[in-house]
């Protein structure tokens, strides 16, 4: 049984999330040529899912540090270079095109990209050509899993599939993907209720801003939870 303050804070978070965050991000997407909107996703759900998966794998350090935030990664609210436009120019942003390429060809094209003066071929242990190949080949089954998902168990399986099968996706990025495709951009044909998404939630708290605010709240409130 949650304590009263936790419950009240939770109510406030729901209000902020639904009344401020979701409209804010929807506006960002609607106002940018690269934004993911209902119309765009419904027109080509498989291609949109592929693109979202790929962009999510770059929405991490050090790429966000180089770009100064997630906006250039997603091509939102910027007029300068964006990752979608760069990948599109390299012939790597459309699912059909990527499915025709070999891993070596993708690797070569990513190595030639210069996103804020850095190539896109690899980072740490991730070889992004493998990410592209696996993501492109998984889109169909991911879409199917999303559409069939009804319970928390299904969500857990989908979350696990994302981070276990696609190189470059860890638990945190997998959680963000579940949040985007099943909660915030619910245009892929899924009917899972938001309450069933809980198995995929906690890893997003490892992100810097989330953990920072949680820590500050904890310091203010101490043990009064």
């Amino acid at each position, binding site marked *: 049984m*949650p*304590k*009263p*303050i*936790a*419950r*009240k*804070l*939770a*109510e*406030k*978070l*729901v*209000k*902020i*999330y*639904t009344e*401020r*965050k979701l409209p*804010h991000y929807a506006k960002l997407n609607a106002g940018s040529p690269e934004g993911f909107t209902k119309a765009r996703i419904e027109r080509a759900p498989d291609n949109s899912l592929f693109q979202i998966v790929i962009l999510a794998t770059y929405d991490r350090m050090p790429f966000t540090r180089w770009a100064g935030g997630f906006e250039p990664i997603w091509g939102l609210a910027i007029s300068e270079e964006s990752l979608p436009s760069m990948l599109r120019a390299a012939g790597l942003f459309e699912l059909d095109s990527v499915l025709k390429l070999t891993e070596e060809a993708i690797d070569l094209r990513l190595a030639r990209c210069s996103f804020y003066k850095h190539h896109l071929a690899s980072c740490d242990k991730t070889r992004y050509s493998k990410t592209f190949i696996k993501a492109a080949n998984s889109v169909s089954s991911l879409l199917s899993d999303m559409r069939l998902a009804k319970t928390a168990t299904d969500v857990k399986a989908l979350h696990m599939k994302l981070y276990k099968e696609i190189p470059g996706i860890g638990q945190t990025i997998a959680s963000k993907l579940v*949040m985007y495709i099943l*909660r*915030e951009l619910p245009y892929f044909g899924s009917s899972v*209720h*938001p*309450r069933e*998404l*809980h198995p995929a*939630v*906690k890893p*997003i*708290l490892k*992100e810097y*801003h*989330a953990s*920072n*605010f*949680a820590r*500050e*709240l*904890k*310091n*203010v*409130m*101490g*043990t*009064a*939870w």
Partner: protein
Amino acid sequence: MVDKVFEALKSLGDPFAIDAFYYIDRDEPKLKKCLLGITTGGADDKEGEMSEYIDAKLEVALPADKMQLLKKVAKEEFDVDEYTLAKIWIIEQLTLKIRDLPAPAFPSALPSEGVDLKPTEKTIENRWQLAIPKDKRGLFPETDKKITLAYDGVEYKRSYNPKYGEISLAKIYESGISSGDIVRVTPLQPGQKYRVEVIKQGSNKPAQKNQGLT
């Protein structure tokens, strides 16, 4: 803390709303300030644009209600009176604050101790400055400044630059320091004034005035 909020979000049917943490911290500094403020009863924007998010829902945290909450929690969950629980919480908060403080800059040497310098024959002959060993430089100023060396009743003003970590004895050399003697420098007012003593070779005591060291 997060676990309890997460459980509450689950029961409210929207666990991903916990991502509001990320959103607030990154994109809503004013809202963040207000939220952190109200949890301590100090919201500064209750009538402003954030008021709809800082409504009565968190007002349990305001002082009057806090006392009620304290009594309830103390009795039901800790089985102690509210005063005892308040003390426990205060101690925990202080512990947290102390933990978050930067580590104190420990001086590499204690002010009560001095540093023994051993000038060589060449150093004495050339009136060179004496280098302070690195582990003793904590006794000396951290910035470039004048220090006072008190030797046998006379005070000498000397420049000290931490970059080089050397002191100049200058006229003190003329008191008859020999190779093998120990020059002991002890802080009288750390960072400002130091006592200089010369311990003659083979002696445990500072040299006396009538030994030609004035």
